[in-house]
């Protein structure tokens, strides 16, 4: 069975501080992982995928198969980063989502 764990429901940081949103997964095959973001009053959208090894809006995430983790990081948080973040794992046709972390960046 595939499972995604986001241990923090809430995360609060100050503007300019580093931020790390944790994600751990359980999957027997080769994992494909994603971060989705939902800003206030907007629809859920893809932030980044691990296979692209990209940086989006200053965020990066590295897949660590040894630790079965896919943590999302940004060196300097901005107020506009305040949102709900979901980690997701792809299996067959579907995605399994974590419970989400609400990030608040304070001025």
């Amino acid at each position, binding site marked *: 069975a595939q499972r995604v764990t986001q241990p923090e*429901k809430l995360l609060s940081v100050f503007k300019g501080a580093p931020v790390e949103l944790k994600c751990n997964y359980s999957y027997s095959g080769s994992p494909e992982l994603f971060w989705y973001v939902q800003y206030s009053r907007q629809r*859920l959208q893809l932030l980044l995928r691990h296979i692209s090894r990209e940086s989006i809006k200053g965020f990066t995430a590295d897949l660590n198969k040894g630790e079965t983790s896919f943590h999302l990081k940004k060196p300097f948080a901005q107020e506009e980063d305040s949102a709900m973040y979901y980690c997701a794992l792809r299996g067959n*046709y579907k995605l399994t989502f974590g419970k989400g972390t609400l990030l608040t960046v304070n001025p």
Partner: protein
Amino acid sequence: DVKVTQSSRYLVKRTGEKVFLECVQDMDHENMFWYRQDPGLGLRLIYFSYDVKMKEKGDIPEGYSVSREKKERFSLILESASTNQTSMYLCASSLTSGSTYEQYFGPGTRLTVT
């Protein structure tokens, strides 16, 4: 630009009513999904469909059914609405193949059952 639309943003129904939530996508995607989103529980998959007239149960199918008669349209049906089905419902679609998998989400329908 992919567009996933949902028939209503807000819906209020009474206990026992039959409720239809409609979702339409315009990008010829094979796969369509219905989730419910609850605070502290994240997104939970109710049903998904990988082709017309094909459907599979997700993690929480009880109390729901679905219909996919056309490729672009996926309906979620609550046969007899109950208060514990008060939630935000999200529809999504995706392609099956391709190296850049992505699910595209609709704006959501906030359903209140009284």
